[in-house]
């Protein structure tokens, strides 16, 4: 079985982001990680292939520096990777999905595709749907349990209120992975060493006939979130304090 896992190289959510100009941030000193939801996809793909045989191919669309994220995925057990290099920090979901589709068609369509349920940087939650649509494949997002039975995938997802939905899809299909699907493994040292010898096929976005300038969504402006103002002390008698609190909640914060 051939499984493709789409992996995004994202800034650590704990990183302090400093803006650089109107539409970019300074990424030189920011720690980048694999998108955490994608790691559930990598783990699931590697586990399936360990049991059933086949190969796991990582597909990453991102800047040169994304190589470290790709090597991490390989240390977890992925066999090879395709890295489509971009120049900009952001690529809209439409172009990302087009690039993923083009790569997979060129490499040979997989039997199963994993993505994360979304990426923790832009949180657009669109790429996996666009990819599935463009390939004409079924998709379930936010999958927390997955079983394969022959040419079928049985996927479970939580739909709120403690309820779970169980869906059956024919293969090939796209699975958006989320927490609960598995516990991503720690890479073993021998696998880390092997990872550096595994093949990463590199290509430019333009080689796939895609121009970053054709994005349908463009970044207009990035702004820092204003710092929260300090606590406000309400003085006076208990009655006064309660009255003032209610007034603030109603008139200033408009929460009641």
């Amino acid at each position, binding site marked *: 079985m051939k499984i493709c896992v789409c992996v995004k190289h994202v800034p650590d959510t704990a990183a302090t982001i400093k803006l650089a100009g109107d539409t970019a941030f300074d990424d030189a000193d920011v720690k980048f990680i694999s998108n955490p939801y994608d790691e559930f996809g990598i783990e699931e793909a590697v586990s399936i292939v360990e049991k059933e045989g086949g190969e796991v191919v990582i597909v990453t669309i991102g800047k040169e520096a994304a*190589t*470290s994220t790709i*090597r*991490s995925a390989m*240390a977890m057990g992925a066999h090879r990777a395709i890295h489509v290099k971009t120049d900009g920090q952001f690529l809209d979901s439409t172009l990302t999905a087009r690039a993923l589709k083009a790569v997979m068609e060129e490499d040979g369509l997989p039997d199963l595709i994993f993505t994360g349920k979304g990426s923790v940087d832009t949180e657009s939650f669109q790429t996996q749907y666009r990819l599935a649509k463009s390939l004409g494949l079924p998709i379930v997002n936010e999958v927390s349990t997955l079983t394969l039975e022959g040419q079928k995938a049985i996927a479970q997802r939580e739909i709120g209120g403690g309820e779970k939905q169980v869906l059956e899809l024919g293969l090939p299909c796209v699975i958006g992975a989320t927490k609960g699907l598995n516990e991503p493994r*720690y*890479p*073993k*040292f*021998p696998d*880390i*060493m092997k*990872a*550096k010898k595994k093949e990463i096929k590199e290509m430019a976005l333009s080689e796939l006939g895609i121009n970053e300038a054709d994005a349908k969504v463009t970044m207009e402006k990035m702004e820092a979130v204003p710092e929260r103002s300090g606590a406000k002390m309400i003085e006076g008698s208990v009655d006064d304090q309660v009255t003032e609190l209610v007034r603030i909640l109603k008139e200033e914060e408009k929460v009641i």
Partner: protein
Amino acid sequence: MAKSLYFNKEHDLVRKAVRDFVNKEINPHVDEWEEKGIAPLHDIFKKMGELGFLGIRYPEKWGGEDLDYWHEVVVLEECARIDCGGVPMAMAVQSNMATPAINDFGSDYLKETYLKPALKGDMVAAIAVTEPDAGSDVAALKTFAKKEGDHYVINGSKTFITNGTQADFLTLLARTSDDPGYHSYSLFAVPTDLPGFSISKKLDKLGMRSSDTAELFFDDMKVPAKNLIGVEGEGFIHQMMQFQHERFSIIPMAYVWSRRMIDLAVEYAKNRIVFGKPLIKKQVIRHRIAGWLTEIECLQQLTYHIVRMKMAGQDASKEISMAKLKGGELLTQVADGCLQIHGGMGLMNETRISRMYRDCRLMAIGGGANEVMSDVIANFSGL
């Protein structure tokens, strides 16, 4: 950053792997282990062994990873991010204190029986050298191993033995002759499930509380002769060489912990307002910290110099002794100073600095006290 002069992307992956493991599998349990006075080493080492963390420099044939000293430094630096001293010390005993001599001088039988399971995390190891009357003065030890046929019969006692209540085997130094001089000792791999071995008690300590430290007794304990490590009579020499690995393994802890304690103190001093200003604005505090940071940088660079010497196959015994001495002094000084910055809060066991202060103190004593290191350096310098 200077770091990139020494470490490449592969090292970064190793660093990340160990850091993730420490953050997820170790640190969440440290408070509980400190409270209990023991950490479940069989469980911890099994997990670490499966990932290959215990045998960085050891040959693949014996379950190691065949990597170099740079990788080892990365692992030691990351293990120093554990929120107590006891657990990284247990790990260092397993990989750097009790097993190097088996790898360097032991027979294939000993490597198969003890080294391999230790590196895989199936056995817990301890190093049994110190005795009630023989600490840094190793040659004063009295435990005796008398050869009788195909066995050695061991009598004596060992104390302050790290991992002592959980160890499956000990790398033990004993006298095999009453003759004076350094050629009267031998090193053994001693399984702890043989008759005549007993753990007299788990010792109660100022710091390193999650580490089980024990007093061990040997009463006519018969150990097969094939458990002799290396050459009979050369145990002292073997152990002195093993000590170099032990001392080296402690050094990264010294600069990583010194920085971590400063981070805690700075964080506290930023928020602590005294006489209307944050404490960190006081010049005396700023200069004191700047001085420590400078010394930490020196120690770290000396460590990397030692790694380069080791990689080039040079003897770094003098430099390791210098770094161990400096590390012991620096940790004690920085721990004291950082606790001072915390004021009364520093005495509260709920603050992290309090535990670090207690755990740091060992560095100037264990693996050869500061004074012994000074003597070694003096000897190397022809004084």
